[in-house]
């Protein structure tokens, strides 16, 4: 890339973010105009298509599959029934609603991809909010934020943690032993901010009506088949990668969507075309355009090229570097999709660690996993930054975009600033908790 192209890429990216932030133009249009500009100036080329598909294909498949399955299950009436149970559990309290979201969504996201989990629980949360007469926006944003933070709970909870963890050879159990506690703390960090950020919902209290008779499931066979599809999906999410033919979560989502459509077709609940039309294509298109913009940003190699610069700034002192990475990747992940950011940052960090003499020259090789223990906090800091930074803004994570898409489909449009007012304080606190955890981890490993 020439200097002009690098500067133009940054300018286009900034313009797109500003257009979305200040609501100057619809966010899909802003992102597509940004992509078009980069194509016209030769920054995005045909050769970029495969990296874009490689990065965006997974998250978009997960969204598509989750949306189809959620739509099909929604037709069974089971969401209304679970919604009733959830509503009873809140006892009419907004405070309990928010706390239950934290308690229920976090473990769910340990086994389901974040955005898929948001799609599945959103109908229940929306119905409970309606019954409690509170705005759906706050609870759905909290759902997205908790789902993102819960990605830190296990090695496979978020693509960013998996990317970093697998790059340094961390096993599932190693992760549980050394990093998961940090994830728990990040999830819990949401709780003290709830009364401050959503005071109306926190204080809301309604007297629940008498318990109504359970919603009748009109087609039990359809329900059973739909739940079997969901069960198969969840099972494959958990064990698919261990099967002789490896099935990764995005593939599971496509298989789940195909089976769910087969059920719809077989039971003739509604035309298959209706289900496909109900998919939130606007959200998928927006994320596709954002992933495309991020590919252009990664091509500038600004992030990767910082390794020598970081060494010149901080020398071989790893802890300041860990904190800078946590904050820097956190900020970048709040504006860009975290997967390519973390992938580029990995190149930068391995380069830095070799330049600093903290790791041997062969650590630059793909697949090197024998990292010295002293370097672990640096990688854990990257995981915190990549996973939690996305909570700050509306475009920081797929789950956020999905949540606001659901809000829009229920007539509540969420602006960039509206999300920021809730997301930014939570992300800042979670990243601070992450920094303390990294410090403690370094002390323990020392």
């Amino acid at each position, binding site marked *: 890339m020439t200097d002009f192209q690098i500067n133009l890429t940054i300018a286009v990216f900034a313009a797109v973010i500003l257009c979305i932030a200040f609501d100057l133009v619809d966010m899909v249009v802003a992102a597509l105009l940004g992509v078009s500009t980069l194509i016209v100036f030769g920054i995005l080329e045909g050769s970029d*298509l495969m990296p874009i598909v490689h990065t965006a294909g997974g998250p978009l498949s997960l969204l598509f599959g989750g949306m189809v399955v959620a739509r099909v299950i929604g037709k069974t009436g089971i969401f209304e029934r679970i919604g009733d149970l959830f509503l009873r559990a809140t006892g009419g309290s907004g405070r309990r609603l928010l706390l239950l979201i934290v308690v229920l969504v976090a473990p769910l996201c340990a086994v389901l991809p974040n955005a898929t989990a948001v799609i599945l629980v959103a109908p229940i949360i929306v119905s409970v909010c309606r019954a409690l007469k509170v705005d759906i926006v706050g609870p759905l944003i909290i759902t997205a934020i908790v789902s993102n933070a819960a990605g830190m709970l296990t090695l496979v909870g978020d693509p960013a943690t998996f990317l970093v963890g697998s790059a340094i050879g961390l096993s599932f159990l190693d992760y549980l032993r050394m990093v998961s506690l940090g994830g728990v703390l990040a999830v819990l960090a949401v709780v003290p901010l709830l009364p401050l950020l959503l005071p109306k919902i926190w204080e809301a209290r309604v007297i629940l009506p008498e318990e109504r008779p359970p919603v009748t499931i009109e087609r039990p066979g359809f329900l059973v088949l739909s739940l079997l599809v969901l069960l198969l999906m969840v099972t494959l999410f958990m064990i698919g990668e261990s099967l002789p033919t490896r099935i990764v979560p995005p593939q599971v989502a496509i298989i789940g969507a195909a089976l769910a459509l087969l059920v719809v077709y077989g039971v003739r609940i509604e035309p298959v075309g209706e289900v496909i039309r109900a998919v939130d*294509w606007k959200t998928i298109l927006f994320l596709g355009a954002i992933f495309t913009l991020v590919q252009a940003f990664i091509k500038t190699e600004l992030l990767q090229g910082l390794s020598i610069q970081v060494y010149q700034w901080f020398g071989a002192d790893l802890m300041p570097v860990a904190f800078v990475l946590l904050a820097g990747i956190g900020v970048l992940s709040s504006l860009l999709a975290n997967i390519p950011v973390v992938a580029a940052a990995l190149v930068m960090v*391995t*380069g830095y660690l070799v*330049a600093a003499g903290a790791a041997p020259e062969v650590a630059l*090789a793909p697949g090197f996993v024998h990292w010295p223990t002293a370097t672990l906090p640096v990688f854990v800091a990257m995981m915190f930054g990549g996973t939690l930074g996305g909570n700050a803004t509306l475009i920081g994570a797929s789950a956020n975009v999905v949540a606001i898409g659901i809000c829009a489909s229920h007539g509540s449009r969420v602006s960039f600033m509206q999300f920021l007012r809730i997301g930014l304080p939570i992300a800042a606190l979670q990243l601070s908790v992450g920094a303390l955890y990294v410090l403690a981890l370094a002390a323990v490993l020392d």
Partner: protein
Amino acid sequence: MKLTARCFAVLVLMLLALPQVKAAEVLNGVKSRGQLRCGVSEDIPGFSERDANGQWRGLEVDFCRAVAAAVLNDPEKVDFVPLQTSARFPALQTRRVDLLLANTTWTLTREAVLRVRFPGILLYDGQGFMVAAAVKVATLADLDGATICVEKGTTHQRTLEAHFKENGRSVKPLLMASAQKAAAALFAGQCQAYTADSGELAAMRLRAPGGPGSFVILPERISREPLSPVVWGGDPEWATVIRWVLNILILGEEYGVTRDRLDVAIKENRNPLLRQNPYEGEMIARSMGIEPQWGIRVLRAVGNYGEVYERNVGRDSPLKIERGLNRLWTHGGLHYSPPID
């Protein structure tokens, strides 16, 4: 919905319709930037250092200039990036530099594991030892049990320990962050010897407090150190350009084309190196992605290999390193270029 779905299809089609995979990524980057970013050793006399006027000089520097002359038609279009040894490969991998010339030994581990390419050997060297002249050390056997300064992140540490172990001797390596620090530690008496490529030892000896004569380089060499330019492994076209810039330097010496006699040789049109069919020359250059007459530009910029060697590290330099293995194959050395045709 229909509109956004169509937009999505249009986006994918737009990307599919774009020009397909572009080869020669580094070469094209250098040309579009108009500058070669060359990673060189940090201040080693004879190899890469800045003179009193701030001008870069040395064997590595001349090679960078030769490449810039071939690719950019101007030997001055080089951004020299001095690199510590440990930062060499990170700088190349993160594309901070287009070409690495920092006294780097060609090894299988580096080529296979780091996925870089070594286009050819610029200098045949070997790992030697420098000791104070006043100390009675004549051979390596006299260094049994000694503390030896060695630069961190080089192949020298492992070779040092392996050599002493194989010979039933012990050694205490004292790891230093740079060649300068390793040499300074020897001069300060922190170690009994300093081990590195013999060329680097000769360079550092120039900076000895009591003059070069106060330190000696032992005659033994414990390794072969074929020093090569290094390029990123994903751009074979770029590796080809670098390899043939090196080969043209060697061919220049083989055919007796010197910088001073270049114009005469072109005019006489008798030298086999310069007597190329213009059509073929153009075809080769176009295939390499550079402009025709690149070989002439290289030789005009820095001279042939012998001139580059003698000027920087050989008899015309303060280092005065014998050519030894760095002579042409016709004179008992190892430098040999494949033919152009």
